[in-house]
């Protein structure tokens, strides 16, 4: 028997649910020993691949001379579309519109058109520059509005959501206004770039180590490109250096090329693009152009809304369908729209194919909706918060969304009331108005914006998960699940659930790399669903093992099953207190199966896209923020002086990790709306493709005063894992208050008579130009 386990507490376990445990890899992060794919010891003879990128936004490739590439020092071979043994397609929605390597055309500036395989990464990279490619240019449209005007097609079917009679109500509106808004995209800027390492196996087998949020999809895409069955491909992911949606589908290309080359040359192949190429060749958050037409009464209550959300999707569909759908699902935010028509336009553009990014269209949807509120407020000369409150979903009435789901768990009133009080919003708003009334160069703004975010994949079938739990004879537990760890602490949370289930210390549990060989047919770790789904699947696996242990103990010790109870680090069997490892050892000798595959599927949800009706979301997560800013009306420079946040995470599985998610999401959202600007030149070439030109927030950009609270009274009305709520995406949208506070500061130069219609990102340039515009009003 294990002495250490005897020493364990019998009164409380360490690291159970609802406790602020540190990230399971924290000590490895800070010592540099957490292993990312580029840190792995390479198999002997590992080759390196590098991509050759096109240099036209829209063109036919008339010739591609790769002789100099092949002849370059260290080069082992070159792959083109013709060298792909299976299907040249990695379209995640199976629309067959996204090649691994382009075949004869350049659909955007920077599209991969060949891959060099060489003895070193440096050799491959140098060789890739030696290609001679000739193009026949075609006209290109990189901007969403320009694509609409040029009559470009949709990359996937648009969605329409309707409730009531928007057109009729607009025609008889008390007040009516219309406008438009441009919302910029965003690069993920995960610190660890895309990377894959493929190791060939016997027959058609290959193992791929991929920095991906979606190992199962990598498996499918690799097998499709290789022309083999899925069972020949094993994908493994220990951790990512950040994902944020950028590794949901964007790893496919790199994994496919590494695997194709690995099988072709029968050597391990690693591929890791330089940051510039990573940012050029992979998709980003969608830019949107939103037009809105709104009817409202004299109190600012919305009578009708008709809005169109057009998105820059890029050359292929990727995930643009569900992204633009989610934009529509969130354009209501917290507001009841009695008569509404919402339409999406997923536009094809001659740019890289845009993809998932934290919030998945939701932030853009919400921002458009909030603009409508802001417009009404300025038109009526009121505080936008007053208009927000007038339009909040009710509890028992006015609670049907544009997609006909009833909001059953509405807590936004309490969230906003508490935050309004704790942030001293009203007093501070008066002070801001008084400051601005004095005139002067420096103006201030303050804004409170709410968030309601729907949790579940809108593709209902993705809402399933698996887990694999083994208990070994010494009582130590091996945990594996289908989710991936990208820094969000998913592994820690799921391990806490397992610790809680067995009532053992967290240290008893070892979390292992996600592998398609252990848990199959997983969904992407995305849509904030990681702990909801995988936590439940792990709990299910634990439940199975516990049931067997209970049955064994009950029979063996001759006590009723109810008298077998898992207590801290022990199992109480009748009057006996047996250390957990001891019971496990005994159970093993009595041939009890100590391993289980768990499964979970989210209940209650359904969605009919054709009708635009259903219950796509299991529940909603809520939050609100207050931001106060100062702008310089001579230069447009600004500063975020103070931010207060109250976020609903249900009953938190891990308050420390959830706090980090809220803070991090807010600052990332703030970056999206302020300094992160994607800029293409006239040739359709992205010129902000590295941190030197693309500016994400620094420590000195975070709100000077940053007060974040979790709503500790909240609990999920639905039976989620330990009544917690998802946290990954919802707080990203709290940053809307920064944009609106900036807008208020700008509005002050025209005495708030006009909505500044500030587009995002609100760079110093946009602020200054808006100030100049309003000065002329």
């Amino acid at each position, binding site marked *: 028997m294990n002495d250490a386990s005897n020493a364990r507490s019998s009164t409380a376990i360490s690291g159970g649910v609802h406790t602020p445990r540190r990230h399971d890899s924290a000590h490895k992060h800070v010592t*540099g020993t957490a292993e990312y794919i580029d840190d792995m010891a390479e198999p002997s003879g590992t080759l390196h691949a590098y991509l050759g990128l096109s240099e036209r936004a829209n063109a036919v490739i008339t010739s591609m001379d790769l002789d100099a590439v092949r002849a370059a020092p260290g080069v082992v071979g070159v792959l083109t579309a013709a060298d792909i043994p299976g299907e040249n397609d990695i379209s995640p929605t199976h629309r067959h519109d996204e090649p691994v390597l382009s075949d004869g055309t350049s659909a955007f500036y920077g599209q991969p058109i060949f891959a060099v395989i060489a003895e070193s990464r440096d050799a491959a990279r140098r060789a890739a520059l030696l290609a001679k490619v000739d193009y026949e240019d075609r006209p290109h449209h990189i901007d969403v509005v320009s694509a609409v005007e040029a009559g470009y097609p949709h990359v996937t079917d648009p969605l329409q959501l309707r409730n009531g009679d928007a057109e009729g109500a607009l025609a008889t509106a008390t007040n009516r206004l219309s406008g438009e808004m441009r919302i910029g995209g965003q690069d993920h800027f*995960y610190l660890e770039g895309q990377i894959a390492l493929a190791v060939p196996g016997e027959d058609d087998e290959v193992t791929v180590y991929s920095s991906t949020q979606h190992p199962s999809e990598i498996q499918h895409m690799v097998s499709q490109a290789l022309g083999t069955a899925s069972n020949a491909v094993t994908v493994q992911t220990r951790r990512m250096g950040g994902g944020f949606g950028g590794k949901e589908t964007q790893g496919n290309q790199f994994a496919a090329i590494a695997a194709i080359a690995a099988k072709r040359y029968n050597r391990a192949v690693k591929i890791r693009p330089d940051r510039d190429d990573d940012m050029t060749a992979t998709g980003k958050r969608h830019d949107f152009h939103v037009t809105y037409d709104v009817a409202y009464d004299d109190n600012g209550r919305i009578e009708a809304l008709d809005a169109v959300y057009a998105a820059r999707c890029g050359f292929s569909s990727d995930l643009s369908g569900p992204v633009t759908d989610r934009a529509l699902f969130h354009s209501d935010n917290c507001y009841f729209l009695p008569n509404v028509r919402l339409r999406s336009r997923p536009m094809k553009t001659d740019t890289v194919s845009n993809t998932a990014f934290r919030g998945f269209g939701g932030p853009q949807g919400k921002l458009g909706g909030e603009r409508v509120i802001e417009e009404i407020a300025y038109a009526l000369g009121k505080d936008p918060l007053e208009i927000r409150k007038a339009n909040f979903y009710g509890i028992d009435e006015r609670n049907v969304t544009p997609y006909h789901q009833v909001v059953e768990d509405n807590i936004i009133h309490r969230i906003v009331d508490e935050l309004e009080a704790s942030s001293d919003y009203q007093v501070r708003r008066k002070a801001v108005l008084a400051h601005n009334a004095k005139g002067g160069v420096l103006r201030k703004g303050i804004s409170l914006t709410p968030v309601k975010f729907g949790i579940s994949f809108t593709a209902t079938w993705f809402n399933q998960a698996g887990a694999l739990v083994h208990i070994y004879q010494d009582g130590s537990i091996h945990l594996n699940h289908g989710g991936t760890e990208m820094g969000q602490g998913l592994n820690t949370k799921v391990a806490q659930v397992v610790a809680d289930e067995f009532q053992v210390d967290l240290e008893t549990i070892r979390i292992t790399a996600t592998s398609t060989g252990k848990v199959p047919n997983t969904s992407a770790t995305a849509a904030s669903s990681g702990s909801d789904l995988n936590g439940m699947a792990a709990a299910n696996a634990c439940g199975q093992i516990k049931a067997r242990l209970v049955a064994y103990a009950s029979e063996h010790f001759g006590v009723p099953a109810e008298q077998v109870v898992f207590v801290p680090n022990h199992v109480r069997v009748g009057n006996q207190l047996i250390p957990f490892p001891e019971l496990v050892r005994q159970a093993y000798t009595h041939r009890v199966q100590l391993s289980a595959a768990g499964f979970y599927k989210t209940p209650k949800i359904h969605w009919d896209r054709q009708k635009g009706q259903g219950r796509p979301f299991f529940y909603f997560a809520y939050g609100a923020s207050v931001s106060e800013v100062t702008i310089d009306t001579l230069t447009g420079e600004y500063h975020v002086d103070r931010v207060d946040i109250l976020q609903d995470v249900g009953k938190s599985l891990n308050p420390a990790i959830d706090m*980090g998610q809220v*803070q991090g999401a807010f600052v990332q959202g703030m970056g999206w709306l302020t300094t992160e600007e994607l800029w293409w030149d006239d040739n359709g070439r992205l010129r902000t493709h590295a941190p030197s030109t693309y500016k994400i927030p620094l420590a000195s950009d975070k709100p000077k005063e940053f007060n974040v609270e979790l709503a500790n009274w909240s609990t999920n009305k639905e039976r989620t894992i330990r009544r917690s709520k998802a946290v990954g995406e919802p707080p990203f949208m709290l940053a809307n208050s920064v944009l609106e506070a900036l807008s208020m500061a700008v509005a002050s130069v025209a005495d708030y008579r006009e909505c500044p219609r500030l587009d995002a990102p609100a760079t110093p340039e946009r602020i200054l130009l808006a100030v100049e515009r309003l000065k002329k009003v």
Partner: protein
Amino acid sequence: MANAVRDELRFILNAEVVHMRDVSPTLTLLDYLRLQRRLTGTKEGCAEGDCGACTVLVGRLGHSGLVYETVNACIRFMGSLDACHIVTIEHLAGVNGQLHPVQQAMVDFHGSQCGFCTPGIVMSLYGLWLQTPNADAAHIEKTLQGNLCRCTGYEAIMDAAKAMADADNSGDKLIVTHDTIAAKLKELSDGIRVDIETSSGRLIVPGSVDDLGEILQTNPEATIVAGSTDVGLWVTKHMRDISPTVFINHLAELQEIAEDDDGITLGAGVTYSDAFDAICGTAPTMGDLWDRIGGEQVRNMGTVGGNIANGSPIGDTPPPLIALGARVTLQSGTDIRTIDLEDFFIDYGKQDRAPGEFVRSVHIPRLPEGEHFAVYKISKRRDEDISAVCSAFRVALDESGAVASARLAFGGMAATPKRAKAAEKALTGQPWNEATVDAAMAALQSDFTPLTDWRASAEYRMLATKNLLKRFYLETQGQTVQVTRHKPDMAEA
């Protein structure tokens, strides 16, 4: 006379003295650590010195003895590390593997999420902790300007950095070994030229400035590398061949900072960090600008001489230096000449520097008593960004309150850093009042035709430049018209 030549680099890596013969001039410290030594704690995030994931400490013998500074390993060439002590994250582990106090604070305050930026952040905070364990928020933020984190929003990292003040640093490894390492580095600094030729190029580390002059006479096509914060990218991003490469960052004669009644003279190899104290004494607001050049790692590597020699139209130092009337001294062999800095910039990519000639030093006059001066940088992100515009204003008023002289110099507005002659003319002789300033703002329109690019549109550049002149005027009238995060340094005020 034939100089003695050494055919190997010698440096200390963590606890090991390394002699290295087969070294390409373009081998970066990061590739050396990761690929050759498998010290994989140091990460590559961007390969251009902008994200800080590759931050390590480099100890070097400066004028005040051994100092440890954070640098970006991704753009630091091995050729610049002769007689240096390289300290990586792997060196922080205590006996029995316990965490260093800085690491422990990061764990305790949940300062890591995905963990990829974390080793770099730990190294930056470690560098700070060695010097200033109880740094305030402004100082910590300045230290972290060159470290991007995409997960945490920095709040937890800031909390960790504040908490590490509680740990005593007297027993720290680098403090304990300080004198031994200093002695070893002194022994390695033998003043002998290093000349290494490999199949991938030739690197030369001159033994002295005279030696440098001689090397450049025989190799006028050589690439001179000081801080490598720009040349580093020629290699990591553009795969350019820079051989033969001459490294000058270690040359003591180029590191001199001389102060006299008139102003300061900075050797071409003086880093931004080393120049800080002296530069703050030249004119108001210079320190504010200095703190916004690159991140801390870049300021620890980059040099004023390099910023000038490269002749970039968006370099941050030329506008204020031109406004102050700086002069640059160039050396060719043993010949020396001195010219006005504004004359050094001829056209885009073209400077008044002959092959074989190098920038020796720059002399920066101190702002005369009673004159008004300010330099303002506008960028998309406040810190660690490249200027959209950088504007320096200097006016002297006569007894009647009229403008006796005006020097206005701008970056980001033309193909070179350039004075605004029309605006200067509009100011000179006129009363220093709003009407005059308005006229000068209008005159700026005829001085410049800026470009539109990803940093700013032509419209914004022009508008902001004009408005900065107005800001300058308002500030001379005692108004507060700038957004500040932290109270300005009292010494600066």
